[in-house]
């Protein structure tokens, strides 16, 4: 690691970078030709090329969102982004076959170790594509498909064609159009009827190059009565120039199925993180988004669930931490389309050192959806005078039988809490760290233990050196 890189890392412990070795690197900038080149390079079926091109045209025509953080959005220079970078010619099944630099990076991130201890499968994506992929044999024998998306398209084109873009159409928003045009990597998962995958499967996304654009595309289909827990993590080096991460995630939970999707997003503070995540829940299915946003420069992300079948349930637990120079614009959207559907939304945010967090939520109950229940709780903790928190809840209730609760609170750390903890031997920083960890506890207790421990350490680190 060069000295310059060390300097840039600061408190962010994942900010190191490798030399930029690659086998294929596209010139910066976006055009229809770039889109076609990506598709051709991947040897895709024509229907996928067509979708990409259509999406690209939509992206070009579509205006930027006029909400969120408009100034930051307008400052994105799409011409200064690398849209495709291949760093390894194949996806390996054995860590020893992964190029050394890349393997070292994932070692430092603790991925191979986690895989051995508690995961059912791992995909490691580096820049545009997966460099490592593996699934436990017993899962494979049960018919569980867990692949990187590129391989998924090659080996299961009919399944991909059936579901791709059905939950998040390319025309949903400007960034879903961009993703659909230039997508590369991501996960493809199919869980057969009645199969319960007990150990979580994990995808880890790493950006290494400067001015990189990462556009992974994930599709998870849980067939009737099956369950799956998918975990994703993401980090990037700290650079003075910006990178762009714009993913699309589509989940389909068939009748009685359960999908839990957990994210700990810890991008460096030069990454724009503009992600569309949406799920469809059929009859009696459950979808849970456990969504943690710690890093990035600007995040705009609102995991959504369409409750399409009677008795379906949505659970969205999200936390956001906005430190210096960060804006976390996050939240949740739940659409009750069918009768007797239920949802819980819990959102917690912390703003510190001038950081800004926004909760943006949508709760919709359609006229035909009788007997629905929903509870929305938003808590914000503001740690100093320079920081900011806003709440933008929207409710569209078309059926009067709906049973709805909404609670919101904004709080500060009280001097009584600090004095109490300090009288028990905690320094002011340690006391803050404890309070912050406690505030996020409803989120961290939902994470696999290893992630929870790591997240708590991360937050304690964020509290260090922060008290004047």
């Amino acid at each position, binding site marked *: 690691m060069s000295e310059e890189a060390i300097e840039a890392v600061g408190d962010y412990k994942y900010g190191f970078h490798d030399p930029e070795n690659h086998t294929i690197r596209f010139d910066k900038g976006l055009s229809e030709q770039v889109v076609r080149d990506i598709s051709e390079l991947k040897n895709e079926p024509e229907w996928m090329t067509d979708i990409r091109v259509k999406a690209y045209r939509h992206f070009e025509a579509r205006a930027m969102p006029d909400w969120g953080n408009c100034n930051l959005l307008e400052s994105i220079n799409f011409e200064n982004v690398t849209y495709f970078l291949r760093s390894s010619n194949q996806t390996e099944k054995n860590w020893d076959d992964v190029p050394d630099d890349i393997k070292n990076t994932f070692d430092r991130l603790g991925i191979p170790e986690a895989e051995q201890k508690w995961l059912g499968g791992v995909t490691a994506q580096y820049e545009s594509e997966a460099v490592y992929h593996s699934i436990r044999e017993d899962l494979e024998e049960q018919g569980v498909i867990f692949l990187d998306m590129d391989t998924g398209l090659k080996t299961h084109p009919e399944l991909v064609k059936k579901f791709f873009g059905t939950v998040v159409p390319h025309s949903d928003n400007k960034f879903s159009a961009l993703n659909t045009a230039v997508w590369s990597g991501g996960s493809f998962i199919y869980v057969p009827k009645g199969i319960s995958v007990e150990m979580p499967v994990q995808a880890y996304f790493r950006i290494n190059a400067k001015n990189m654009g990462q556009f992974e595309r994930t599709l998870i289909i849980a067939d009737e009565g099956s369950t799956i827990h998918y975990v994703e993590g993401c980090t990037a080096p700290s650079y003075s120039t910006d990178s762009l991460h714009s993913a699309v995630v589509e989940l389909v939970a068939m009748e009685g199925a359960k999908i839990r999707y957990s994210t700990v997003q810890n991008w460096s503070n030069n990454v724009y993180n503009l992600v569309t995540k949406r799920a469809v829940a059929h009859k009696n299915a459950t979808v849970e988004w456990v969504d943690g946003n710690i890093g990035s420069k600007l995040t705009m992300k609102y995991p959504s669930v369409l409750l399409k079948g009677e008795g379906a349930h949505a659970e969205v637990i999200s936390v956001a931490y906005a430190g210096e120079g960060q804006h976390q614009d996050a939240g949740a959207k739940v659409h009750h389309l069918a009768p007797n559907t239920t949802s819980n939304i819990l959102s917690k945010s912390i703003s510190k050192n001038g950081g800004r967090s926004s909760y943006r939520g949508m709760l919709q109950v359609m006229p035909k959806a009788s007997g629905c229940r929903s509870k929305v709780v938003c808590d914000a903790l503001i740690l100093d005078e320079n920081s900011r928190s806003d709440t933008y809840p929207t409710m569209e209730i078309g059926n009067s039988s709906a049973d709805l609760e909404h609670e919101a609170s904004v709080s500060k750390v009280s001097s009584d809490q600090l004095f*109490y903890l*300090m009288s028990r031997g905690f320094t002011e920083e340690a006391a803050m760290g404890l309070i912050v960890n406690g505030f996020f506890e409803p989120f961290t207790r939902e994470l696999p233990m290893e992630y929870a421990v790591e997240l708590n350490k991360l937050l304690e680190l964020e509290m260090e050196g922060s008290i004047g």
Partner: protein
Amino acid sequence: MSQEMLRIENLHVSVDGTPIIKGLNLTINRGEIHVIMGRNGAGKSTLANVVMGHPAYEITAGEIHFQGRPLDELAVFERARAGMFLSFQYPAVIPGVQVGTFLKKSVASVRDDPPKGRAFRKELNEAMSKLEMDKSFLSRYVNDGFSGGEKKRLEILQMLLLKPSLALLDETDSGLDIDALRIVSKGINEIAPEAGCLIITHYQRLLDHVKPHHVHAMIDGAIVKTGGPELALELEERGYDWLDTAA
């Protein structure tokens, strides 16, 4: 010679410019239990908080020494690490932080050679059974949804684990039923021989269980009368009016 734990000399304290403590003197030695009684607003809680270092209180004159060391040098957490402990009248709620985690971290911060792993758990179990506390306490959040009695027990549990050499107990007996009072007293009696204790209370009834060496009557920010245990009984019987003229 007895070992001095706390020495307060001519202490004057203000809150937002209003004088609360006006020339208070007090010395507590190792092994001594002192009781301060007084009406509401006499400055008793202010005294406990200012000794522990609460930032809202301003010392306008006088000095506080802990084991011969001037306290103004020490931040709040350093006072705790030096061996001072305050049992709060109203302990703060820390949502989302489990009692078990909190106790472990606190013990690790305060004690010089903190017990770890099994040794810690053993000590914790012993202290909890002394205080007749159920293990389910450990997974609850610190003071969150606790009854008054539960809060006070948790304060005493912390005191047993942190092993202070000076314990300030601010109305630890208030709102306790007779069983809880007995249990809390057990905790105080356990640390008392090796520490200096300052008990702030309104009531004599705690003194059925804890035998003080000195009882002080506090009026309008100063100690106006000092005596033995019999003074506590007298104060409870006669009130404080008879002392007003003395002050």
